[in-house]
Structure formats: C-alpha cells, structure tokens
C-alpha cells in the first residue's frame, strides 16, 4: 500500500521503500554523521514507525472484522480479495519516486532503485 512520506523530497511509495531509504541514510549516519543525515535519518525512522503502527492497527482491525465472518468461503474470499488488491496495487507503476535514480514512477519490482 503506497503512503506519502518526505525524505529530502516527497515520495509516494510503499513503507518498505521508506524503510530502505532510511537504511541508506542510517548507513551514512554511521559512517559519516552530519546534521542533514541525522535529520533525514530521524525523519525516516519517525515516518517508518508511524506508518508501521498505522498499518499494524489497520491490519488488526481488518483481522478482527474477518474473524467475525462466520462462513469460511466468504472469509477466504475477503482475505483473498484484500491480498489481491494489495499485490495488484503494488505492481502498478503508481508510485511517485522523486528519490529514484532511474525513474519518476515505479512499482514493487523497482522498490530498491
């Protein structure tokens, strides 16, 4: 699920990409330090934690709602639909990635560019 975040430039991408970029800044932070890198690293950590918590909460609520569905076929269909939508959305080139070195719009396969 793409989310908006800011790391020196505004992106619209999966949280996994945010975590990846944060890790890059963390590597520089360890190697070099520097105020800007600290700022970007902190921004990354905060946003990653925020979105992870939000998604955890959303997933917990969704799981609770699915638990209430009594008929297994309906429950399987609901879970399957949710998984399909998530995977499909991640495969579409819908992510704006100004931090990308190779393209303006990306998908899950180009998460680490």
């Amino acid at each position, binding site marked *: 699920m793409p989310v908006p975040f*800011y*790391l*020196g*430039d*505004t992106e619209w991408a999966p949280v996994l990409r945010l975590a990846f*970029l944060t890790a*890059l*800044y963390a*590597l*520089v932070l*360890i*190697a*070099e330090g*520097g*105020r*800007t*890198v600290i700022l*970007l690293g902190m921004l990354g950590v905060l946003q990653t934690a925020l979105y992870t918590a939000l998604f955890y909460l959303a997933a917990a609520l969704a799981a609770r709602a699915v638990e209430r569905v009594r008929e297994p076929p309906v429950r399987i269909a609901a879970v399957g639909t949710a998984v399909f939508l998530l995977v499909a959305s991640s495969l579409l080139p819908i992510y*704006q990635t*100004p*931090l*990308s*070195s*190779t*393209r*303006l*719009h990306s998908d899950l396969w180009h998460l680490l*560019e």
Partner: protein
Amino acid sequence: MAPARVTPRAVAPLLALALLAPAPASPLERTEQRAPCDARDPLRRPFFGDLHVHTRYSLDASTQGTRTRPSEAYAFARGAPLGLQPFSPSGEPGRTVQLARPLDFAAVTDHAELFGEVATCNTPGAPGYDSTVCLIYRGWPRVSFFFMNARGAPRFRFCGEGGSDCLAAARGPWREMQEAAEAAYDRSSACRFTTFVGYEWTKSVEQASNLHRNVIFRNAAVPVQPASAVDALTPEDLWDALDTQCRAAVPGCDAVVIPHNSNLSGGMMFAPDELRSGTPFTAGYAARRADYERLVEVMQHKGDSECRRGAGTNDELCTSELLPYDTFMGRFLSLARREPNARNFTRTALALGLAHQVALGVNPFRFGLIGSTDTHLGAAGLVEERGHPGHGGAGIPIGEQLPDALLDPIEYNPGGLAGIWAEENSRDALFEAMKRRETFATSGPRIAFRLFAGWRLDAKMCGADFAQRGIRDGVAMGGELGAAPSPGAAPVVAAWALGDPGTAQSPGVPLQRLQIIKLWVAEGSPHESVIDVAGDAESGATVDLATCETKGPGAPQLCAVWRDPDFDPRVPALYYARVVQNPTCRWSTYACNAAGVRCADPGTIRPGFEGCCDDAYPKTIQERAWTSPVWYTPTQAPASFAQRRHPDGSQSRGMTPRMLGEAEHLVTEGERRP
C-alpha cells in the same frame, strides 16, 4: 523631450554600419601571449556566451547522469554535437544536442565544493572509493544528491585527515578544467572562441538560501586550488581567498565574482549587513564588494532575478519566468515555501545601491547585468525553448531511460546568455569589458543591446554613427554619467536593440517594445519609472498555442533616445534598458503539445505532464534582454538625505539601506509613458 521613434527597416543598414565604422583605438591591457585578432573593432562588437556551465565534476550534474567533460562542453559551445543521458550500457547517448550557432565565449564553472569527492567516488582505487558514501553515490545517486550537497565543513571522513585526500583529488578536475579551457581557447588571429577558467562558489545559508557566486578568471594565471564554500564560508572569505591566492600569489591573476539566483536567496544576497560579521556595511566593505562583484547574473534556468510584479514593483513585465519560492528549501519542501519578496531581486539591489552610495560614499551593488544557462548537462548556450532537454542538476532525474514526462520542473526554463561589448574576442578584451560592466543579458535570443547616456547625446543619433556618437558624447552602459554640465541639464539615454536574426530553420522573433527603467531614491523611498520609448505594446502580436506559430507585427530592431524629464540633480539615479520580443511559446508548451496534452481533455494529461495545465505557469513568454545601467551620482547629498535622527537617539547621514529594506517596495512613478 519626446522619445525619438524610428522606422526599424529604414535604419537597419545604418545601424549595421555603426558596428563596423572605424574610430580611435582604445587602450587594452594585455596580460597574455597571443596572436593579435584580425577582427578588432575600436567601437566594440557584441559577443554572446555562457559563463555558467556545469559538467560531470559538479555533484548535482553527475548524480543526474551527466558525463560531459569540460572539453566536451567547450566543443559543444563551438558547435560540436553533444551526447546526453540516458546512456546505453555500451555508452551510447540516448539524445544528441547541437547548437545552431556557436557561442563566442564560455566558461565551465563546476561547483568547487565537491570536486575531490566526486572524483574520488568515480575513480576505482582512489582512497575512499569503497566508502559508504561513494557506494551510495554510485548506487543511488539521487539519494546522495541530498546528503552530499548539504554537507559543509568538515569534509567527509573518507576524505582523510583534514579532507586532505579529497583536496588532493580535487586538483585533477581543476587541472582538467584549465587544460580544457586552454585547448579550446582560440589564440590564433581568427579569435573565434574564448574560454575562461572558472568555478562556482556554492554557499547556502538558512533554509538553503542561495548565495552562490561564479568566479571567472582573466586568463590562465589561476590559483592552485579553487576557494570552495567548505573552506571560504562567506563572500568576504571568498574575496579574501582571491586576494591571497590569486591577486597576491599568482602574477597576472585577476577575477570577477558574479552572484546568481538572488531570486533563491531568501533575501540574503543583497542583505544590508556583512555576512561574516553581521555588522552594517562600511565604505571599505562596499568598495571591496564593488571591486570583485561587478556583474550579476540576472537570468538563468532557475528563473528571472530582475524583478517580480507584486514584490516591490507593479511593472507589468515583471511576470516572466518567476519561481514560486525564494529558497532551494522551498523547491523540495512545500512547508518551507515562501513567495519571494522584493529583496530577492536585482532591481531592488540596484536601488539599494544608490542608498548605500549616499550613506557610505560607495555603491556596493554597482552591477552590470548578464545572463547564462547554469546548464548541468555541459550544454553551454543551449537556450532553445523548442526541444528543451532539461538542465540536469536539481531537475528531473533521467536515469536509465528518458521519462515520459516534462524533462524539467515546470517552473524552470532553458536559461539565458551573456552579452559583452568588446573590441575583440580575446580574454583580455572580454574581461576588461566585464570589469567596466559593458555587458548585457538575454533570456536566450541573441539580441544585441547597447545603451549610452550623456548630457549632450543627439536626439537623432539612431543611425549609422550610433556607437561613435555614444562614445564621443556619452558613457557606455556600466559607466558613471558624471556631473551635470550646467543647471537645468538632464541625462539623455540612448538605447538600441538589434533583434535576433535566428537561423534558416528557426528564424528570429521580432521585437515588440523597448523600455528605459529609471531608479532613484528620494523622500525616504526607492523609486522606479518604466517608460516605453520605442515599439508598440498594443501591436496585437500573438502566438497560436496549438502550433506555436507567431503572428502580428514587430520590429527587427528598435532604437530610441530619451531625455529624463524629471531629473533632479540632487538625487542619485540609474538608467538601464529592457527590450522584449513578441510573444512566443514557452518550452513547456512545445513539450506539452508534442506529448499530445490537451487541457480540455483530462484523459490526455498523463502523469508527469500535470504542469502543462497548471494555470500558475504561462503558456507563452516574451523573450527579452537587459542592458547594464549607467549611474548618476550627485556631487552633494540632497537635503532629504541630510542628518537623520533615529528612535534610539543615534544619527546617520541620509537614508540608510536598512530603511529602504523596511520599505520593501519601489514606488512606481509611471509606466508606459511614450
């Protein structure tokens, strides 16, 4: 006196002759060995060039995939084709560009700050090549663009103790820049092309407020190493470094320092206090600044820095190529986006300079005007709107493939050119012209633009002997008018603009109107007056947005002689001229049309082309040119500048620049006064 209107076609041959007519030779200080130029014109000729060019040695260019070497940038300026990113795995360029007309001069001005770091990260085996920073630089250049650009002192750890490894590595690119400049410089008597060794001092303060300056050296005598913003933290430190490492250390070394993008300075470029000490200007400071900073780059790809309508002026033409933010931070972070105020613009600085002149006896903002591109592709002088390939740098990443999108942020533009009036196309002649500020700026077209001012200029001097009369009876732009010869005398300003003839494939666009802009300070406020003196603002010239075909009348050249009807000999003033072409399509309109975007049909607005239909950005432009000013300085301060008592009890002589800053506006006295 009414301005003299001329019939452009009638005077065309005469004005062309004016360039070629003989006149007494003027002395030119020679500082280098070279063949005398065959074509030498004591009346001076207009030369077009680009004094702001980045190549692979600038971090922001290299992280955008630019591979252009300095030698290739100079070859491009001389007319050779240049391959641009994206490159194939075998190194074949995805795009090729070429100038329709070579430039007369150019300077590669890479960012001095990270010469060594960029060279280290690109040189296998170099100390630091395998560092984390270099790994990220090579693997994720867009990420490194941010944290490397933001790095000041101290240098990265991979640069070794005290940055010694990177400083040593920086000498390689610096040497290559010098060698490339030397190899491309035409020292033969043909004098076809001139190069300057230079670099960009890239200092930003407070929310990335831009204080950037280009340093252009007179000849091949240059410092061992450029003074970067890592080592010279303030403009004052830069001048110190040039004093000690150039003028005092290297025989024949001299430099001019050219501020640029005051529109992105957050009002800091022309602040009234010294940056290093935080204290108000002194006469010594003002003199030193005026000595080094004789020119200002008023136009380049990141916008027009002359003026902004609504920010201190009502000038109706101050609406072209304006950025919607006043610092680099505003470019990348919408929360930090502020609308630029008057202090970001050259016109305000020129007015402030008059106030400083009164207060200090010296004008620190005595600028001649130039334009340049600031290309980060190494494509010197590539200013065509049609087919604009982007500029690299802080623009759209190209990467491995050309994005299906606008190739530059919508607010950027292809950039401008520098014009210099000089006797010949040699380093000494061009540099002397820069020092005397006999320069002009264009937003791209090769409009030859000249201005003289004097007390006795003939109202009918728009003819074959325009230049001879101007030199004989007046002063050229960049100069000082001097004292009025008699009570009741008034300055006469003569301006002449020869439109860009263009090429067979891309004919030039006619000129629409010529204006004189007068600035002065009086009654506690800076004032401006913008006067149409030739051409016709209501000519009805238009452009078809679908085809970009231009229609309507215009002039191949415009000339006018204007006498200041409101001149007050007690008041400091300056005069410069501006000329605009008929409307033409902006680069983005060409690109949007080529992409099939039709704003009425949302289905045609693909991602990456949203800017095509953003009403904040115009579909058309009026390309333009500006002369440098001529200044008038009264011999005695006027009564309104007499001793002032401040609320805190202190007194000062006259109106202070700080007070002008508080005013934050220019009082517009009149527009369109034919």
